[in-house]
Structure formats: structure tokens, C-alpha cells
């Protein structure tokens, strides 16, 4: 039941072009998503990884044109539904908003608990969602029960509960079910499991995988925890300082990452495989959105950095575009040498 492991994007469901999110802050303009470009393939699971504050949530919000006030979203995001015309997500009519949101694209947030209205029962959330989208409520509720059951929840009991009566894992699954009740094409998940313990995280990831396969969902899965998506995602996109620095098929990104940041990230991630002695933290701190370094934004932390890096912002590209693995680094070729991937080395040595 291995899914196709896409290399390149053939049938994009999202085309994100030069998308920027900026906030006007006391300290200056803060670009918390900086002219990012990415395509999302229909039916894939795209993992978006990055450290805290790198703009992951902004990216997710941008995909739904739901950037919080007073953020300003510019650029182009085109959504290609399975059937019908392409939709310009950033210029939706009132009618389209209603249609796109939750019916086509839905979203699961980090804090499931806080995504439910505490004074409404879970069941009411389902019914409300169905009703406001003019779906048949009864039919929809049957689907909801199925979904909940698929997520190993006792549907009746859960539907009758209030959010605070559910444990973290349960409410997270209930939220996933809620996001799927209108049978959307795309599910954007912003750290859906961050607040849970590992056993639950893993169980949920597995369920997501299952559901994605069963329903041909496209999933954009956002996390700061690389290992978590390692086995879930078809492709992985790495965000650093509000830009994508590397995008590629999951396997390749994990085994032969091209960007020094991705490599450092892999080396600094606690896991059971890498020998403890060889795990290394990333030096330095992530940049502040108001004062992102010129040139390559990673240069202050990069062992390879030189004057070029300080001056020029490397484009997100590759010599071998056909494999769909791109990175934004001036010295891609020098990277493997300077920043060895400890886990891979260990394996090679073995």
C-alpha cells in the first residue's frame, strides 16, 4: 500500500506564486512569509517543516486566504479543483469563499481543543458545519459517525460531548473528522499533533495516512518535527526564515538534503537512530522577521557562508530539475562535504 512517491508536480492542485504575508509592526515591516513559490500536487502529502516562527502557520493561512488581521497577503495562489475552473484564491467572491472553505479546502489546527467552541457540543459543530454549507444534515451526520469510527472514536459519545470533556488525542481526531465531513479535496494540517504524546501522534499520523489514501486527499502537513513527517510525506518542503530553502521528495530530502540548514536540522533532531554523541545542535538563532539578514538568510549560521551569501539571495532551484529536488543555496555541491549527515554516515560506515 505504498503510495506513489512523486518526484515532480504533474497535476498541481495549488500553485503558490510570490506569496508574501506582511505585518506592519512598531519596529518596522515584518514579512513573515517572503515571496514563496511552491506547487502542491494533487493527491500528495506535502510535509512543510521549519523551526518555530519560520512562517509555517502563515503559509497554512495563506493557502486558505485566512491570514489574521492586520496581516497583508499578496501574490497569487491558484487552486485547481478536481472538476471545474481554476480558482484565484486571493480574489474570491463571497459565494466562492463559502464554497472553497471547508468544502474544498479545510484545515486542522494545532490546538484542537481551542478550535472548538467550548460552549457547543462536538455534534453541534458537525451539524452547524453541514447546515451552513447547505449539506443534508442527516446524511452528513452519518458520514461524520463513520469518520469518527474510522478514527477509532466512539462516535455517539463523542458527538454528545463538550470539547473540554475530550482528551487531547480525542479532540484532535474529532477535529480531523470535522475537517473531513464536507469531503474536501485538500486538508491543510498545521501541527495537528504537536500537543500530543508520541504514541498518540504516531497513531494519528497512521490514521491520516489511511484516510488520505482512502479518500484521495491532498494533504499539506505542517510540523517542526522532521521525523514525524519522514514516513508520512511524499514530498518535504523546508521553511527557513519565511522562505522555502529546500523542496524535494521526502526520501531524498532525508537522505541527501541539499541545503545546509536542512542538514543541520536533520543532525540536530533527537532520534533513536543517530548515535547520541554525534547529534549536533544548530548554532545561532533564527532571524527576526523585521530584520532578516540580507543575501541568504541562513548565512549567519552557515559554515559555508562567504561574501556571496551575504550579498545574494540564492534562488530555489536545482541543476537537475527533473527529480523535483530544489534547494536555495549558492554552494549546493559543497554542502555534503561540509555538513555531513551523521545518520547517513553511520549507516554507510555500517
Amino acid at each position, binding site marked *: 500500500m505504498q503510495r506513489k512517491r512523486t518526484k515532480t508536480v504533474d497535476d498541481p492542485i495549488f500553485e503558490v506564486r510570490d506569496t508574501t504575508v506582511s505585518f506592519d509592526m512598531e519596529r518596522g515591516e515584518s514579512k513573515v512569509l517572503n515571496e514563496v513559490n511552491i506547487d502542491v500536487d494533487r493527491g500528495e502529502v506535502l510535509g512543510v517543516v521549519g523551526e518555530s516562527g519560520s512562517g509555517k502557520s502563515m503559509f497554512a493561512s495563506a493557502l*486558505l486566504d*485566512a491570514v*489574521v488581521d492586520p496581516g497583508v497577503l499578496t501574490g497569487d495562489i491558484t487552486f485547481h479543483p478536481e472538476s471545474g475552473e481554476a480558482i484565484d484564491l486571493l480574489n474570491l467572491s463571497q459565494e466562492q*469563499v*463559502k464554497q472553497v*472553505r*471547508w*468544502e474544498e479546502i*479545510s*484545515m486542522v*489546527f494545532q*490546538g484542537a481543543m*481551542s*478550535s*472548538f*467552541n*467550548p*460552549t*457547543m*457540543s462536538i455534534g453541534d459543530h458537525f451539524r*452547524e*458545519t453541514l447546515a*451552513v*454549507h447547505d449539506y443534508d444534515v442527516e446524511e452528513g451526520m452519518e458520514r461524520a459517525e463513520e469518520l469518527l469510527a474510522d478514527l477509532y472514536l466512539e462516535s455517539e459519545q463523542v458527538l454528545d460531548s*463538550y470539547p*473540554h470533556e475530550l482528551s487531547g488525542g480525542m479532540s484532535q481526531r474529532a477535529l480531523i473528522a*470535522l475537517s473531513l465531513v464536507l469531503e474536501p479535496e485538500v486538508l491543510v494540517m498545521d501541527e495537528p499533533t504537536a500537543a500530543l504524546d508520541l504514541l498518540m501522534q504516531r497513531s494519528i499520523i497512521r490514521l491520516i495516512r489511511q484516510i488520505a489514501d482512502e479518500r484521495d486527499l491532498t494533504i499539506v502537513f505542517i510540523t517542526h518535527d522532521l521525523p514525524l513527517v519522514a514516513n508520512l510525506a511524499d514530498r518535504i518542503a523546508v521553511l527557513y526564515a519565511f522562505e522555502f530553502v529546500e523542496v524535494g521528495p521526502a526520501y531524498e530530502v532525508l537522505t541527501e538534503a541539499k541545503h545546509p540548514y536542512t542538514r543541520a536540522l536533520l543532525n540536530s533532531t533527537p532520534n533513536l537512530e543517530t548515535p547520541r554523541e554525534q547529534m549536533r545542535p544548530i548554532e545561532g538563532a533564527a532571524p527576526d522577521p523585521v530584520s532578516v539578514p540580507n543575501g541568504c538568510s541562513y548565512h549567519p549560521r552557515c559554515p559555508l557562508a562567504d561574501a556571496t551569501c551575504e550579498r545574494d539571495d540564492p534562488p530555489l532551484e536545482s541543476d537537475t530539475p527533473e527529480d523535483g529536488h530544489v534547494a536555495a543555496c549558492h554552494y549546493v555541491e559543497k554542502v555534503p562535504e561540509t555538513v555531513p549527515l551523521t545518520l547517513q554516515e553511520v549507516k554507510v560506515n555500517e
Partner: protein
Amino acid sequence: MYILKRLGQAFVTFVAVITVTFGLIRAMPGGPADYIRARVMRNRGSEGVSMSEINSLTEAYTNFDPSTPVYVQYFDYVTNILQGNLGQSVSFAGQSVNSLIIKAAPWTIFLLTIAILLTFAVGIVLGAVMAYREGSRFDTGSTVLSMFVNSVPYYVAALLLVYVFSIQLSIFPQSGNYAVGLEPGLTPIFIADVFYHAALPVASLVLTGFGGVAITMRGNSIQEIGEDYIRVAHLRGVPGRRIAVRYVGRNALLPMYTNLMISVGFMFGGSVILEQIFAYPGLGNYLLQGIHARDYPLMMGIFIVITAAVLICILIADLTYGLIDPRVSAGEGKEAY
């Protein structure tokens, strides 16, 4: 058992309040006769009461035997109260405190209920709209207005309203609960007239009270608007109106439920002066007369009734809050640090 515990607590409070007020009232200088004396002294013969009566009044008009020890009186009194008997009024000869209270209480309750409901209704709606337009000129203006009305004492407002609406414009009656000569009953005319007479007293409470509610509501709503689930609801395509009412409005309102109940107590206290200004025949009016006349049983009776009303309101608030707001689970108690 939470309910039992809570009821027990309420009972203890009740008895404590009775005890405190009993003590205080007995400690008050003067007795019922002194009030008559005061009346005689003040009018010095211009009424039909002769001045020489003054000195013969001392021991008349006490319904308790001053020679019985206070604790016995107290015990008797508490026993009576627990049997629902508040005693015999001293200053209203021939009337029991129960009957006086039954006569007065409906008017106070009527006035206060309307005033509280209106205050909260106006305040809540205004506060919610302010929150939605946070930062707009409407918001700033309304905030200033709310703060301003909040700093006007209700009796000052009452006086001004009387000046404008009954003295200058003669639109509303200045006092009383219904027009003289009207046959009380559930006739439309009577009911309309009762509301007509309640207009100014209610207005003075509402006009000075809604500001505080609005400011609280605004704060709660703004906080609510910032919650994640509001964002999610928008994303789910829930229409704005529904979010405003079912999400923001309702959730911002819930914490004010307890306020509402507690404000009952405050308003009961405040009714003393309001009913005085408007000569409204409610509990406050009788309480004031009772205090002036040193009518112990009447004072105690009204105190007890108000206290009981407040207690019941708080009790209801405590017991029902959990039902109204699913977030709250009743009960508390943690180990002492």
C-alpha cells in the same frame, strides 16, 4: 454532595446575616417611641399631638419585653423566622411584617427585574457592537459614553430625569406606582400605567448602569473574538452573524451571568434611595420608614427578605452556572499549601 454543601453554606450565611443584623438593629440608638417623639418634637404642637405626650411615650410601642435577655429574644426571633413568621410591625399598627412585605415586594421586584434586564440588554448589545467595531470612532465614542454614565450616581440621574421629564416636560409621572383611582388588576390600562409609572425609576437605573455592563461585555467579546475557535468557525464558513451571536456573544455573556445575579443584591440596596425619590411603595421605601421609625421587626423582616433574595440569586447562579456554561464543572477544593 455539592448541592447539599452549598445549601448548608447558604443556610449558615443566612443565619449569620440574621445574627449580624439582629445585633446591629438592637444596637441602634432609640426605640420605636423615639420616632414618635421625634415627630412630635419636630412639629412642636402644630399637629394634633400634645407635647406632654412626649414623656409618656417611652415604653409604649415595643413589641418585645425589654426585660427578657437579648439572647432569648434572639432565639425567639430566629425560631419565628424559620417558621416564616417575621413578626408584627411596630410602626404600622395592626399589620404584620409578612403582610407589609407581601404588599411591597412585588413592586420592588417588578422595578428591579425590568431595570436589570434592560440594563443588561442594552449594555450587552452595545458592548458587543463596540467589540466588533473595536477601534472605530463608534467604539471610542461609546466607550467614553459608557464610562461617563457609569460615573453618574443613579439618584443624580433620577433627579435630572425628574427635572426634565416630569417637571419641565410633564411627560412622565414623578412618583408612585400607578395612577390614583385606577383599579388594580390585569387590565391593559392598569398594566400600561404601571409601566408608565416605572419609566423614570427604571430609566435612572438603566441609564447609569448600562455603561458598566457594556464595558465588561466589550472586554469579554474582544477576548472572545481573539480565540482560535472563532477563526476556525470563519474558516468553516459559519456566517458572521451566527459567529457574532452564537460564538462571541454567547461566550462573552456567560461569565456575566454571575454578575447579573450579584447585581440583584446591589440593586435591592439601591432601591432604598430610588424608591425614596420616586415615592415608590417598594421594600426600600418600607425599609427606610422602618429605620426611621426604629421598627425593629420591619427592618429585620426586610433585611431578611433582601438577604434571602440575594442568597437565592447567588445560589441559583452557582448551581446553574455549570448547566449554562459547559466549561465549568462545579466543585473545588485543593489541598492547602
